[in-house]
């Protein structure tokens, strides 16, 4: 091929999509969800199957899915699409950034829409539904939710002769176990600098990021209790060395818990999906316990939830509303929830989850869980439901600029963990920055 021919071909190839983009006459409902590139697996196939099912029942409608990676970038990207006037008609809302959307009028009030015959607001957990409501307005229908819990590897616990507690551990008991579990090539704990994962250490030590009304950070994030908790977190990495430091984790580029290189991990229910293909831990060895509290009593945790919403910008909310009802309905949720991504927002499906034998991914196929795995699954699911009453909604459900606050807190933690900045100095600077952000405009 001559050079000219090659270039000509290239140009032709480049122009072709412009001419050939076919126009589909169906109305489009764009959905948005977090997530990014993921290899083909059972979960993505289930979602796709359900989407096709919806299209089959609603012949005039076509669904398009936007995936946005990074749970924290998600909110920013969606607001950005709002100002670009191209917000997807039905985005999934993360309870932890709901206020940003609600305060600025980006979402439609679903309680104003007429529900179909199969839809009832009473089908959902009241506190989960509450995370997506402000006053009388309901901005999303719950899909699913998860408390943040402490995962542990039963195999490692057996080897070390450690019994998991009946309730929650105290900080000292937790540290002793983590030290016991840390050995050559293995850490007691894996913990990234991700505030949803570490805010419970503050809460369970009497501290917090913001004051109870969510108006300021000073006196709280840099208050005595929070400083003690922050120091405790920092010491886990820097003094006791029971968790890989951030740069160690970066250097190896792996998920320690999944590789069997860490015995515990703070995370949500979604973790179980990724662990199905993990090389270093078996499904029947994954245990769940409440996050530790300073004294071991009254452990509180944070609850993250996803809800299906409708953009205020949507020209015709009718199709999107149909989708919201379909997606949060029993039929779709039973199938969707079987993926194990979270606790279902519907009471009926959530309560029956422990009794349903899960299907696990295996390479590109699937298989039914073995008896041992099923038993472990039932114990875990019951534990999750048990932890639900100790859940607090995330700050972002009520504080509009909380997404920015999270970034500030994470930066402060970064300074402490990577750059040896003293906890007090980092927290004080962050608290002042938080005050500036939350100042009424």
């Amino acid at each position, binding site marked *: 091929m001559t050079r000219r021919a090659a270039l000509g071909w290239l140009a032709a190839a480049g122009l072709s999509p412009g001419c050939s983009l076919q126009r589909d006459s169906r109305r489009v409902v764009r959905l948005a969800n977090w997530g990014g590139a993921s290899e083909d697996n059972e979960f993505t196939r289930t979602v796709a199957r359900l989407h096709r099912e919806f299209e089959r029942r609603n012949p005039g409608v076509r669904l398009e899915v936007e995936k946005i990676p990074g749970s924290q970038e998600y909110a920013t990207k969606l607001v950005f699409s709002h100002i670009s006037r191209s917000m997807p008609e039905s985005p999934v809302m993360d309870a932890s950034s709901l206020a940003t959307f609600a305060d600025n009028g*980006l979402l439609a009030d679903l309680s104003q829409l007429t529900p179909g015959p199969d839809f009832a607001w009473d089908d959902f957990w009241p506190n989960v539904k509450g995370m997506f409501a402000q006053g009388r307005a309901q901005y999303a229908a719950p899909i699913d939710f998860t408390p943040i819990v402490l995962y542990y590897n039963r195999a490692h616990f057996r080897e070390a002769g450690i019994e998991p507690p009946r309730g929650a551990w105290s900080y000292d008991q937790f540290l002793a176990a983590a030290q016991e579990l840390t050995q050559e090539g293995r850490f007691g704990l894996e913990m990234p600098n991700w505030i949803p994962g570490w805010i419970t250490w503050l809460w369970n030590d009497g501290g917090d990021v913001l004051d109870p009304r969510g108006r300021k950070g000073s006196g709280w994030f840099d208050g005595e209790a929070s400083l003690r908790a922050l120091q405790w977190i920092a010491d886990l990495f820097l003094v006791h060395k029971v968790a890989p430091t951030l740069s*160690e984790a970066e250097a190896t580029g792996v998920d320690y818990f999944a590789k069997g290189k860490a015995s515990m991990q703070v995370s949500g229910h979604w973790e179980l999906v990724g662990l199905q293909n993990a090389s270093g831990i078996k499904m029947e060895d994954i245990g769940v316990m409440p996050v530790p509290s300073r004294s071991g009593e009254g452990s509180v945790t944070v609850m993250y939830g996803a809800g299906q919403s409708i953009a205020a910008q949507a020209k015709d909310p009718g199709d999107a509303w149909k989708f919201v009802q379909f997606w949060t309905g029993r039929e779709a949720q039973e199938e969707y929830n079987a993926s194990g991504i979270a606790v279902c927002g519907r009471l009926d499906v959530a309560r029956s989850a422990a009794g349903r034998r899960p299907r696990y991914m295996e390479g590109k196929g699937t298989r039914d869980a073995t008896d041992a795995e099923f038993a472990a699954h039932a114990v875990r699911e019951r534990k999750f439901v048990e932890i639900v009453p100790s859940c607090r909604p995330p700050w972002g459900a009520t504080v509009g600029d909380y997404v920015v606050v999270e970034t500030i807190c994470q930066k402060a933690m*970064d*300074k402490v963990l*990577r*750059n040896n900045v003293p906890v007090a100095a980092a927290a004080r600077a962050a608290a002042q920055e938080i005050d500036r952000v939350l100042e009424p405009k």
Partner: protein
Amino acid sequence: MLHWLVFAAFPIGFSMVLALYDWQIVAGTNRFVGLEQFQALALDRPFWNSMGNSIRYALWSVPMGMALALGVALLVAKPLRGIAFFRTLFYAPSVMSGVAISMVWIYIYLPEKGLVNSLTSLFGLPSVSFLSDPRWAMPALAFMGAVVGLGPRMVVYVAALLAVPPSLEEAAALDGASGWQRLRNVTLPMIAPTSLFVLVTSTIGALQLFTPIYLMTKGGPLDTTDVVGYHIYTTAWQKFEVSQASAQSCVALAVIGLVTWLQFRLSRKAIEGYSPS
């Protein structure tokens, strides 16, 4: 022409007008505030920190990039067999995707297992987390800029070097000047206008750095790599303070203009001072 008006000239004017308002783009409210944005900006320490970072980046990367480009140009300007191959090779990184390059350089700078740390550990040096150590992040990014942007600068220098009449060098050689002396006293003055060109374009480029920051450091550690291009981006599209960001771009434009003008002034003097001898 119309296109230029709409997409180059008009935006500048529009920026300035925008900066006079307090436009809450998410909520959709807008009110005229005059010069308030600029007043706020004057006291906005994070913004001036980013300005300082950009200048620091330019001060690191521009001299490094120019020295590297000149050095390589001196090598590849020689009429050697196969030299075209090397020119192509050295040019290649500058046509590659900035995102891909950033991804590869994240690896190069990784602690422990990264390319640089693997090499230095052979000499028993301790591992450095280049991108998360506030002392190293900026120089590391600047070095990357110097290497990746080698191509065009090298080509410009080669063209200039080939235009230096060989007779001049030969005459100098006859006078007994060493290689270094010939470079310093003959070649460099001859290519001074080219150096000025490279200096100005590299500086302008350096002051607008964005992609590597977005992908590699996000402005961290401790805001030491929060350069002005990235700062404006986050102000506008993550905090959605569009008017404030417009004010920032006006200031950035003024600074870039000022730096360019200064470079022209100073170097013209330097060139004039050089040539008569």
